[in-house]
């Protein structure tokens, strides 16, 4: 009973956050709603007994990834969305498609999905067990993901750095590549926040 109430409570917060993400026009509001969603999901994980996952969710997702998003929003001085000419296809075909898919899945689950129930705190296992699993059966994916992160770091650094920085590095080693001149000066990276 308690489980159900708590589930519904946190579920409602989750739903509200998700809907708010869609509704808000300024990206910072959407980011904050997303943080709310993640926090409520962490609570759901706790309800299911996955403490470690919940902790990681808060630390990594809400704490690192969302911070990254917020930093970028502030860096780029993103403003409220303007209404430009969008894509008819996306609205006319995509949205109904997504909704139909959703309805189908929901219908299938609720009428035919004779799955069982979960109890509160049903998941077994302490972090030690998780760690043991991680470093025994899942060692290879673990190592590969570390390589993946490395690659992601390098990619992010290269993509986000300025062209002149790369050019300068090139001139130190050999003849400069004729990179195209920037048409306008780069925008103020340290925003004065005038457009918020």
């Amino acid at each position: 009973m308690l489980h159900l109430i708590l589930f519904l409570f946190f579920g409602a917060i989750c739903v509200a956050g998700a809907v708010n993400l869609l509704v808000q026009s300024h990206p910072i509001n959407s980011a904050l709603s997303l943080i709310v969603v993640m926090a409520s999901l962490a609570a759901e994980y706790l309800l299911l007994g996955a403490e470690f996952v919940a902790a990681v969710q808060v630390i990594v997702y809400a704490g690192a990834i969302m911070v990254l998003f917020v930093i970028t929003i502030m860096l780029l001085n993103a403003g409220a969305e303007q209404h430009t000419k969008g894509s008819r296809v996306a609205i006319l075909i995509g949205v109904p498609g997504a909704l139909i898919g959703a309805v189908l899945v929901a219908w299938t689950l609720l009428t035919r999905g004779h799955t069982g129930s979960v109890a509160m705190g049903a998941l077994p296992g302490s972090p030690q067990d998780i760690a043991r699993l991680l470093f025994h059966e899942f060692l290879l994916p673990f190592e590969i993901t570390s390589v993946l992160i490395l690659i992601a770091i390098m990619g992010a650094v290269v993509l986000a750095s300025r062209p002149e920085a790369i050019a300068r590095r090139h001139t130190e080693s050999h003849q400069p590549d004729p990179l195209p001149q920037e048409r306008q000066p780069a925008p103020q990276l340290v925003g004065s926040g005038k457009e918020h």
Partner: protein
Amino acid sequence: MTPNPYLWLIPILPLAGAAINGFFGRQSSKRAITAVALTFCGAAFAVALFIAFRFSSEAAPYYFDLAHWLRSGDFHVDFSFYLDQLSLVMMLVVTGVGFLIHIYSVGYMWDDDGYYRFMAYMNLFMFFMLTLVLAKNYLMMFIGWEGVGLASYLLIGFWFLKDSAASAGKKAFIVNRIGDFGFLIALFLMIKHFGTLDFPALFAKIQPLGVETAGAGLLTAIGLLLMVGAAGKSAQIPLYVWLPDAMEGPTPVSALIHAATMVTAGVYMVARSHVIFERAPSALTVVAIIGTLTAIFAATIGIAQTDIKKVLAYSTVSQLGYMFMACGVGAFSAGIFHLMTHAFFKGLLFLAAGSVIHGVGGEQDMRKMGGLRRYMPITFITMGIGTLAIAGIPGLAGFFSKDEILWKAYSQGSWVYWLIGVITAFITSFYMFRLMYMTFGGDYRGGSEHYEHSHNSHGHGHGDAHGHDAHGHGEPHESPWVMLAPLVILAFLSVVGGWIGIGGRFEHFLAPVFQSAPAAELAHETGGEGANQFTEKLLMGVSILAAFGGWFFAYLLYSSKPQLPARIARALGGLYEAVAHKYYIDELYAVLFVKPLIDGSTEILWHGVDQGVIDATVNNSAVAAREVSDEVRHMQSGNLRSYAGWVAAGGACVIAYMVWMGIR
């Protein structure tokens, strides 16, 4: 049957010569080309003589299996060669006359640019012809059959840059093909019902069968279809139309292929298939009727021709008719006898005509010749001997063979055949002596128009590039000895070649081949002959009369009273026009067959099927692809959200499908 290991050499030697000249001839000197061509052809003749000397009728027939070919269940066909008395005669004729004509061509074609090509083609023809006569089964014969048709096409259209020559080559090949179709169907029937095409095996299976009297039946069908093939190859009604046009080719070609050897392949084939024909009397009657009709029909056309080679061409068709008439009444050995003598004198006549043409610088119209006996004595004498032979003047070769046919036609056939044969002999004598008088008699009518290009409508023109234009004179001259020597040899053979038929020696020699007649026929043959010695002598007298009568009429019209022919032609009016235009048969065929075929092909097959269906399908599928992709292109707008929209829609479809599959 005894094996003979030398048989396969005879066809292969000319093939080697053809290959060497064909591949290397372009860079070789003319002497080298000549040496190769004559050596290999002569070698084949030498081997043939060698085999002939060692030929023994007791050991005959000889055979040689070269290699396996087809094996399909019980049916098998091999590359095998076969030599009995019949093929011995054919082989000697082909190699001997062929070798002489090769020597002649050295002189005739020396100045032609395509000299090596000519020699290669001639050797190739020898290979195919020898394969035909030495084959041990019908399929090998068919290889030779088709091959000589190919060689004929190549050689008729030798001066291929000339439209008329190329068309004549095509016409020959196509009309031959029609005959080959009949031949093929006959082969299929044989395979189906007898399971073999090998001569000894096949004839052994047919031998015990009785005579089909109802006029219908398997053997009659086979016989008629074989006759279709023979009519195509040997230029009988209705498929003779290619042979006069084939005179577009160089004269040695006309001599070798269209007089002595290729056109006789049909006669040889009918003689070889005598076992079948003897048991299908209605087919045999058809053969006789076709032969007889062709003989007189072609002879009448020959009267009005003005081109010297065309006269000889129609004469060939007519003489082939004689051979088929002989086979048609069951006198196969008489037909082969006439084949042999005809090879001698017709080959001689064509080669001599070539010598005449060479001597007058390319002119072929007899109206522009005349008086050539003074300029070309040797040609005149040899051609005269050939004319005497073909007319059936007693003592020469043609007399014996033609008389044999006429007697057999009367005694084994019916007096109708004999009568038509005699009339044809009269006409033959007439037009041959007409040719002689117009060409050699009187005074030379040519010369002034020699340099004009309008000299004849047969377009000998620039294509006759054997250098007499380079002689640059208006006077006819004798040909070089390399061309005259074969003439002399053939003239000698035209005189003595018939003497081996005296007393029935030739027939006796060939008897073992033709001894397979069903019992009823044998009785008929022996019963009739003994009592009719007097009739035979009487009929011989009639044919001699016809021969001399024709000579006399020719003398009358073309030597003593030269104004008569024109008056007679005017008096006959339309009839003469019809004869002069070959009874408009070519025009008739054009209207009945050629034009509908071409129009149908153009309209239905070309515009309708090829352009309308096939091209349209390919083009329209390309157009359709382009139009579809034109529409689909709009999906790639570069807009991220529309992509996402399509993905979402696609995902919904997949989910719907999975749900539906789960529900089912």
